[in-house]
């Protein structure tokens, strides 16, 4: 029983990090119908920006995080939107899918060649100390990750729901044509979405890198989990992606512990197929209308 509790809590902790990546993923989808197959790499790369800041430029770690965040928001937000996605938007999904897949490979190779192919240790924000709750061993890191993700997601929700800019972004996501008529600068809102995605990815990167170490090949599993979380929760809902992320984190942990570790990834995959067959709009999603 205590093992079970422990698995649940550490699952929730990693799940909350997955949720950050998944939320960014769904935001991009809502704002511009962009399926970002490089989302995992978007989480992998900021850790290296931060490492460059602290090891190459010699900045103190908190400032290096700020440096990494700025670089990520500029390159993965602004440049990605303007130079890669924008020219392809009038041409439908397929070119974007192909280009983001290629971009993922490009980012992986750049890190491997120009930084290192070895896994890099990454300083943790929280201590590794543990404490007991009903016999379950829980680390400060687990609780810290959960708390930071929760704060970020609540802040995002408040921003989207309570501020003028946030509501303009929502209007853009729901109906760009009408939003434009109402005086919303649609292009700018889409750009904001891309920058928020980059910031969420950086946060996820800071939280997950101490656990998995920073490595060029980390993007693939993280990206896969982000897709899964987004689909399981519902593509058009921020809270859907949150629930999806947490659920995937827990299921992944439980299937690794109780099923064979060889088939670990199969648990979430089967969940994905079942969800798409039975409830394609996701657990919390509302179904999207089809245009004729």
């Amino acid at each position: 029983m205590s093992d079970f509790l422990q698995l649940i809590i550490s699952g929730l902790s990693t799940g909350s990090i997955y949720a950050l990546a998944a939320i960014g993923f769904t935001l991009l989808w809502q704002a511009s119908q962009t399926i970002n197959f490089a989302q995992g790499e978007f989480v992998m790369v900021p850790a290296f920006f931060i490492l460059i800041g602290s090891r190459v430029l010699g900045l103190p770690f908190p400032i290096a995080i700020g440096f990494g965040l700025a670089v990520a928001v500029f390159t993965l937000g602004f440049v990605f939107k303007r130079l890669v996605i924008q020219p392809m938007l009038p041409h439908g999904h397929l070119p974007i899918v192909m280009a983001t897949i290629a971009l993922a490979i490009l980012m992986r190779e750049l890190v491997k060649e120009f930084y290192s192919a070895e896994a890099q240790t990454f300083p943790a924000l929280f201590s590794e100390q543990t404490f007991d709750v009903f016999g379950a061993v829980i680390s400060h890191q687990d609780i810290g990750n959960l708390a930071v993700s929760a704060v970020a997601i609540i802040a995002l929700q408040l921003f989207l729901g309570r501020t003028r800019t946030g509501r303009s972004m929502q209007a853009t996501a729901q109906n760009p044509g009408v939003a434009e008529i109402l005086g919303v600068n649609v292009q700018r809102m889409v750009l904001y979405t891309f920058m928020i995605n980059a910031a969420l990815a950086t946060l996820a990167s800071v939280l997950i890198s101490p656990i998995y170490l920073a490595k060029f090949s980390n993007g693939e599993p993280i990206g896969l989990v982000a897709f899964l979380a987004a689909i399981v929760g519902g593509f058009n809902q921020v809270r859907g992606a949150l629930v999806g992320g947490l659920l995937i984190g827990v299921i992944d942990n439980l299937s690794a512990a109780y099923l064979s570790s060889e088939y670990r990834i199969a648990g979430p995959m089967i969940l994905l197929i079942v969800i798409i067959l039975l409830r394609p709009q996701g657990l919390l999603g509302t179904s999207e209308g089809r245009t004729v």
Partner: protein
Amino acid sequence: MKQLKILGLVAILAGLIIAPFTQATYGTYVLSSWLVFTVAAMGLNLTLGYAGQISLAQAAFMGIGAYSTALMTMAGLPWIASVVVGMGLCFVVGLILGYPALRVQNHFLAFVTLAFTTLAFLVMRNEEWLTGGIYGLVGVPRPSVAGLSLMDGTRYYFFTLGVFILASLSFWWLVNSPWGRAFKGLRENPIRANSLGVDTRLVTLLAFAIGAAYGGLSGALMAPLVQYIDPMSFTLIISLKILLMVVVGGSGYFFGPFLGAGLVIMLPEFLRFAEAYYLMIYAALVVFLMVVCPSGLLGLLSRGIAAIRSREPAERGDLKEGAQL
């Protein structure tokens, strides 16, 4: 114009027949693998380019074809029997996997097929009693035709070329039949196709299943070619590679996959001087191509021809979405 096209085809065919005699063993091997991957890309072109359903499972279908061929021919059964079984299996799995396509939109199908590819890889890697696990299956025999052994690389190339031509001809027949027009109708506007009496459920399923069967055929050709198969040859990245062949060449164009497969297979050979940077250059090229020309090389070509003749290029329904931004 038509005579010119036929002349061009004859020239290409003649080139393909002469090619192995100008090449060393390795060159012939590269040519053979181009033919093999073109067959897989052709199948995906049917699913994606003609019927508009995105699939990331083509490598898994190749795997199913390759493993059935390897297992059956190593057990002493004839190659042709293993092809029938492999393609049949792929067709059935394609039908089952195509079922979600009836319910959900394109991008979800991408994820269902992605999940399938991962599951298929897990089975190939973990079920050692059947597939040999990570070590794979070694010593797949090459078939012999009319008592003539194909162990020689050049002979096997001609065998592959023959199967390839058969596959291309049946593909040509298929896409120009009423079925092919129904596939295109489905891509351009599924609801309109439905209202015009096309059974969209059946056509979607068939597009998926036939595309999968081509994947199986490609796998059945691949196993004897490399004579050694392991799960790493059928991972998601290979599916992406086949998808890339279709998109780079020009999806929905008959010769798109031929050109795309050629580029994707040959480019690493040309970029060999770049060594470690090869993947980087390659990925950057793809991003660039997609940004500059989303309809692929043949799309670029037909746009160029249309511009010379000062005609509007044909509109494609699947490339118009998202235009509101």
